[in-house]
């Protein structure tokens, strides 16, 4: 005679602390955080991890992850990560940066960390605006998109064009793994997790610079409900920021995850 028993399908990752995130309801920053925590559990990295929080809505990352962390000046996370990794070569160093942080004020630091082939992993959250400061235009803001500093919609003639960070960084020889993923639905969230795992593998194998760009929602500043926000991402961001692998070093291509 058979018996049934209950198995645990999913639970909160151990690499999270008890703290409640400061993110707005439905903000997919939370999903990105969760994926990292899950991977640190699954890959058994907690004791090796050193996170570098940036300045943005994720500034308090160190409150939510249960491993070592530092907090970087706006845009300088890759420089701090460089300083750490050069001394702590056996640790896994991860920066977590928003689009304003990484590709506006931090352009110099990310480009040079990539071209130096720094053996670090960068998680790049592209939500087309400056969330923490309440929705100003970011380098990633889409043409015509309204923000608090592009009140008439981003006019590319006066305010320039969005930067496709993954595409730009992929031109640098030092970059080994540069991809874009999205967090707007279960399928893409699964793919995003695989990419982050790959990026961490790249670092653990000492193969150099890895970056995963994640398309993310900002319901609050977009003025949408979380569900509407995922749809907006799908309709407006995906066409401009195609999901894909922009740079995969031959040695990286051999890695199976």
């Amino acid at each position, binding site marked *: 005679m058979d018996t049934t028993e209950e198995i645990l*399908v999913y*639970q909160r990752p151990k690499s999270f602390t008890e703290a409640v995130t400061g993110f707005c309801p*439905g*903000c997919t920053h*939370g999903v990105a955080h969760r994926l990292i925590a899950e991977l640190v559990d699954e890959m058994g990295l907690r004791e090796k991890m050193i996170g570098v929080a940036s300045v943005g809505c994720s500034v308090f990352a160190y409150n939510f992850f249960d491993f070592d962390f530092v907090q970087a000046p706006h845009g300088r996370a890759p420089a701090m990560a460089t300083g750490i990794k050069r001394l702590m070569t056996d640790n896994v160093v991860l920066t977590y940066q928003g689009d304003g942080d990484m590709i506006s004020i931090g352009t110099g630091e990310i480009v040079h960390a990539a071209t130096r082939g720094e053996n670090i992993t960068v998680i790049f959250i592209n939500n087309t605006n400056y969330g923490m400061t309440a929705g100003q235009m970011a380098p990633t803001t889409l043409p015509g998109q309204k923000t608090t500093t592009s009140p008439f919609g981003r006019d590319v003639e006066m305010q320039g064009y969005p930067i496709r960070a993954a595409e730009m960084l992929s031109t640098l020889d030092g970059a080994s793994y540069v991809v874009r993923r999205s967090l707007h639905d279960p399928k893409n969230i699964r793919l995003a997790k695989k990419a982050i795992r790959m990026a961490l593998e790249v670092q653990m194998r000492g193969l150099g610079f890895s970056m995963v760009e994640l398309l993310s929602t900002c319901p609050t500043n977009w003025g949408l409900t979380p*569900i509407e926000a995922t749809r907006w991402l799908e309709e407006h961001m995906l066409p401009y920021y195609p999901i894909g692998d922009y740079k995969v070093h031959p040695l990286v291509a051999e890695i199976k995850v």
Partner: protein
Amino acid sequence: MPPKGRIVVNELYCKGCELCVEACPQDVIILDPVRITARGYHPATLVKEGCTGCGICAIVCPEATIVVYREAVRARQSVEA
């Protein structure tokens, strides 16, 4: 017969974003219309039978606050083993 499952939402973390409600293939999650959490949100909750324990809600939950269980049928001997 589809597998039977259930979810437990830790209301401390739930912010009533409704992403799980939207994602659930079985449409068995809703935001509790009555209760309000200490932080002022209507929390997600399992509203009727039919959860298969697929875990999709957990995949989209930004607050990692859903615990998912599934009933597994297993043969006697394996129990002994």
